[in-house]
């Protein structure tokens, strides 16, 4: 199985089940490995290829990927 598919499933599970900082105390040994994401490391979720922008919009935005299109709303001194 491609490594990319397994880790995508893992990262979706991770985002639903990640214990929040203020939650009840947990047994650290049992939770050392959240669905394959050990402590002491940073993990960026895997991107998958979905719909891409038309090339005109992509070019003027700065990416072909809608999921990575994250504009700045506070330009010119005021936030919208």
């Amino acid at each position, binding site marked *: 199985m491609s*490594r990319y598919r397994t*880790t995508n499933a893992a990262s979706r599970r991770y985002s639903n089940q990640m214990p929040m900082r203020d939650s009840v105390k947990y047994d650290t040994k049992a939770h050392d*490995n959240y669905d*394959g994401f*050990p402590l*002491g*490391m*940073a*993990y*960026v*979720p*895997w*991107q998958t290829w979905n719909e891409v922008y038309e090339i005109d919009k992509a*070019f*003027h*935005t*700065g*990416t072909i*990927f809608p999921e*990575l*299109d*994250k*504009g*700045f709303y*506070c*330009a*010119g*001194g005021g936030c919208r």
Partner: protein
Amino acid sequence: MWNYEKRLQYPVKITKTNPKMAQVIISQFGGPDGELAASMRYLSQRYTTPYKEVKGILTDIGTEELAHMEIVCAIVYQLTKDLSIEEIERSGFDKYYVDHTLGLWPQAAGGTPFTAQVFQSKGDPITDLHEDMAAEQKARTTYDNILRLVKDPEVCDPIRFLRQREIVHFQRFGEALRIVQDNLDSKNFYAFNPSFDKTMK
């Protein structure tokens, strides 16, 4: 090796000069979180990286950053084109002008010359990729700061493009880090440095 393509990755067409703005935007040329620093960081790190996907992404993003450096320089060039001595004096650009006339020189907005001290090439792929992810966020924040100051849409347009590229680069370096992790033992990612400790590869 590198080839050159005689166009900008994104066009820059600025019709009104603004030396004060040029003095700020020059930070993305020679400043600590600018495009030259980014390019040199990634291109330097790639030599000792053990994984082909990571060599690829460091090479290709390092190359794209040179194209971005060119866009930033084009912006500064057009914002200072044909300035009169009066405009230079009035804007405070005189301190740069005296040493460089209207020539482009890599420095930060505050005047600090470009230096390799602003980046690290640590020779450990986990460390280097964290450095790279941080670098992309620092560049994005710098573009955010520029966008708050800039009112001219002809300047905003390429700046927004450059800022968006930083977000994409961050995602790619994050994925490169996932690839490094996949090649190591998840029980202890830090047991050895795969760029150096040969016996445990």
